[in-house]
């Protein structure tokens, strides 16, 4: 199953740990996971545990506009994309969960 996740809150919100836990569990069960970060969610790419999800095969994309507005530096393995990437995730996945 393909799982899409939208995260719009910053790392101090409990949403971040939930997204990390769900993503890890889904990958361990062989599901595809794609995460899109926008608004304050873009701050999550600098949280170690979150960025490490890419090493487990989770696809992570951020809204580059929101990242630029917040002066967020790039992280290897994370796509600095656009709202089109969110549209692609929403269109392609079997389940889409929003955390905001």
């Amino acid at each position, binding site marked *: 199953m393909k799982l899409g996740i939208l995260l719009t809150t910053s790392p101090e919100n409990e949403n971040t740990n939930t997204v990390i836990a769900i993503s890890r569990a889904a990958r361990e069960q062989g599901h595809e996971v794609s995460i899109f970060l926008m608004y304050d969610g873009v701050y999550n790419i600098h949280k170690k545990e979150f960025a490490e999800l890419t090493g487990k095969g989770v696809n992570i994309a951020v809204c580059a506009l929101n990242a630029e507005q917040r002066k967020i530096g790039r992280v290897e393995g994370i796509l600095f994309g656009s709202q089109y990437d*969110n549209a692609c995730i929403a*269109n392609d996945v079997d389940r889409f969960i929003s955390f*905001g």
Partner: protein
Amino acid sequence: MKKIAVIVRNLPLNTRRNAEALRMSVGLTLREDKVTVIFMDDGVYTATPQKPELVNIQPPKKEFEALSMIGCAVLADKPSLEMRGIKSLLASVKPAEREEIVRTITESDIVIPF
């Protein structure tokens, strides 16, 4: 084609969240999905004529124009409007009975509370 409902519930003037919800809604149409924006609770204030620039907030004019141009339905929950005494809405926003809101949500493949 999927049906996507984006629900906006927050007050508009203390955050950019609502404008971002509208920008995201425009973006979600890029894969030919059908997007409906629903204003509920305090989110309905976003759908009223206002001048947020007076408090140094950029009005989400472009986002509303884009949603209108691409034919996205933009609904405002009537009970939320009545509870707040709101009588005037932006031209592109349609007041909707709770039944229509519920039907839109239940018929959607994806619901995004923003």
